[in-house]
């Protein structure tokens, strides 16, 4: 990774930002410590000088100039941390460790000064430490200068500064190295994910991000990505499958339409029907083909929705009302056929579903029951809440029923049992009902009806079981 590309990486840029903040904070602290220590050292030196000056002026006051001179000599012989200079009225040196007072413009009274003086350290090197000193005029006009070195503090401060600079350097180096490492690490993790995204973009839906079991957030992201891709792949597959199925499914009604048109053409040619009738036949066939096509499409959409685990456009409504409406809609048709129609509907069956599709499903099973039950039979619609809380619609008839072995099969597309071929229908009714149930997380159950009696039966009971509305 070259530096310019490194600079574009978020983690590395964050590292640099934090390092800069750290350096600024460290400099501020250092500055504060320096200033505070320096003023503290000055105050300490000044206090020491003041106390020493008091002692010496005390000696002078009580015992005179000679005594002071002796005291100074004594002090100069010992290793005193103070610097002394005693001058006569003209400023000529009497005693002291200095050649001249650093105060060149002495105007009398107590005058303070901070200055650098030349010294040698333990190893004999020449240093120029700072000192704080004061000059006073004594009773008979002599001048006394006392100072104290602040060299200790200075040495301490310079060691501190050095240490801090060194520490800062190490931190910067380590931080930089850490930033590069973190950046590279994240780059690697992101790279894995980016490669998957790029592969998918280029059309490879099978690409998956490698993940570790107890992984970090990148593994979580990778897992999320993989789940998303799994879903996408399966819904793509189901769409492809639906497309194939539609093409396949439409061949048989088209073949039928062609055959009927051919017959109509023959009839028209032979003068058995006229051209208008032939066209009407063609139009009716086209309409029924379109209806079939729409149903196949609806089934495919519902199955795609079910595959994605969602209901298309659900609304919250009372299923009891829907059942009552359907009963009301189909009752006259049922009675016209000479069937006894009854409905038992519990009240307040709140459900979250696609209302038109559910109405269609219910209509289809009622329609089937009426279609296949011979005159004199009975059709019963029930809507109730099961003890499990599920909503169940059931339609029971006294028709011939469906043999147990065929019950799974009749739900498949275009499956029509032999004894139903004489009735009009596309063979899609129950498939659509099945798809509607699938898209609602529900199921369709086919059972035997009330049993055989007097030429009727054994009948069929079709139940649609749906989960109740979450809020109900």
């Amino acid at each position, binding site marked *: 990774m070259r530096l310019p590309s490194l600079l574009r990486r978020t983690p590395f840029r964050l590292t640099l930002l934090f390092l800069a903040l750290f350096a600024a904070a460290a400099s501020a602290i250092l500055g504060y410590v320096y200033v505070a220590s320096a003023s503290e050292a000055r105050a300490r030196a000044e206090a020491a000088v003041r106390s020493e000056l008091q002692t010496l002026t005390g000696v002078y006051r009580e015992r005179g100039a000679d005594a002071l001179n002796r005291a100074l000599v004594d002090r100069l012989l010992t290793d005193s941390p103070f610097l002394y200079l005693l001058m006569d009225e003209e400023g000529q040196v009497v005693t002291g460790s200095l050649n001249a007072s650093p105060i060149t413009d002495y105007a009398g009274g107590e005058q303070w000064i901070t200055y650098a003086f030349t010294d040698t350290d333990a190893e004999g090197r020449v240093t120029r430490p700072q000192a704080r000193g004061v000059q006073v005029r004594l009773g008979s006009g002599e001048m006394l200068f006392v100072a104290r070195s602040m060299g200790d503090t200075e040495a301490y401060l310079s060691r501190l500064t050095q240490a801090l600079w060194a520490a800062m350097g190490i931190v910067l180096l380590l931080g930089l190295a850490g930033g590069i490492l973190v950046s590279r690490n994240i780059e690697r993790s992101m790279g894995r994910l980016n490669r998957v995204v790029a592969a998918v973009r280029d059309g490879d839906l099978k690409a998956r991000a490698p993940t570790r079991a107890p992984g970090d957030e990148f593994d979580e992201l990778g897992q999320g990505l993989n789940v998303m891709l799994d879903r996408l792949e399966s819904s793509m597959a189901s769409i492809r499958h639906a497309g194939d199925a539609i093409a396949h499914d439409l061949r048989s009604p088209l073949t039928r339409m062609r055959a009927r048109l051919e017959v109509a053409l023959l009839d028209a040619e032979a003068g058995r029907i006229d051209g208008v009738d032939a066209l009407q036949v063609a139009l009716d066939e086209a309409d029924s083909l379109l209806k079939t096509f729409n149903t196949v499409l609806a089934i495919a959409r519902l199955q795609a929705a079910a595959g994605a685990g969602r209901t298309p456009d659900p609304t919250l409504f009372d299923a009891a009302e829907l059942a009552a409406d359907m009963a009301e809609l189909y009752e006259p*048709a049922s009675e016209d056929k000479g069937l006894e129609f009854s409905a038992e509907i519990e009240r307040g069956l709140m459900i979250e579903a696609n209302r038109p599709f559910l109405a269609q499903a219910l*209509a289809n099973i009622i329609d089937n029951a009426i279609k296949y039950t011979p005159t004199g039979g009975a059709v019963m619609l029930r809507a109730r809440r099961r003890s499990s809380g599920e909503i169940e619609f059931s339609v029971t008839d006294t028709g011939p029923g469906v043999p147990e072995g065929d019950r799974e099969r009749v739900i498949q597309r275009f499956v029509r049992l032999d004894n139903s071929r004489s009735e009009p229908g596309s063979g899609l009714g129950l498939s659509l009902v099945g798809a509607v149930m699938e898209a609602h997380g529900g199921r369709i159950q086919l059972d035997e009806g009330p049993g055989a009696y007097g030429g009727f039966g054994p009948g069929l009971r079709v139940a649609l079981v749906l989960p109740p509305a979450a809020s109900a």
Partner: protein
Amino acid sequence: MRILVVEDDADAATAMVRGLTEAGHEATHAVDGAFGLLEAQKGGYDVYVVDRMMPRLDGIGMVETLRKDGDQTPVLFLSALGEVEDRVTGLNAGADDYLVKPYAFSELIARVEALARRRETGSVATMLKVGDLEMNLIARTVHRAGQEIDLQPREFQLLEFLMRHAGQSVTRTMLLEKVWEYHFDPQTNVIDVHISRLRAKIDKGFDKAMLQTVRGAGYRLEA
């Protein structure tokens, strides 16, 4: 009736204009939403028939613009999309009715005429009268030639719809949509059975049959 057909499919538009003309209407064609908008702004149309998917300005955009400009002319949306959400989006945009392609021509004519009629009879009537058939909407009673006819609530609604569209063809799908308020395909013609029951009540014992079957289309109530 003047009808503006806004449709980008030339074949479909030609067939539609021809069919509407044959049905005795004056139809003008615009090739997309932008042209449709210009044509509509000239005024004088009774119904707009608007395709949903069009280049430049689509049906939704066109109808929204019209409604924003205060044009309340009824709109029938045509769409190849039949899902519930599309119907809702279309109606929310300001369309008055929605027809999914492919449709039977009789269905289109019936809906266009129903839309135009609705505009004419926008006033709140308490009595409906078609020939010697009278409906009191307040008392919810029906009389034919002074003789009271006893109707079930749904039969009453069905007759009310037919009376409001007297003289026009109404299709079975329209009846299921407008009277029962369901949008689905009842496999067998359950609507026919309801109509024949209603017919038995209002026409039986009278000389003239008012409730007529229109071949290939649906039903019509004639005075």
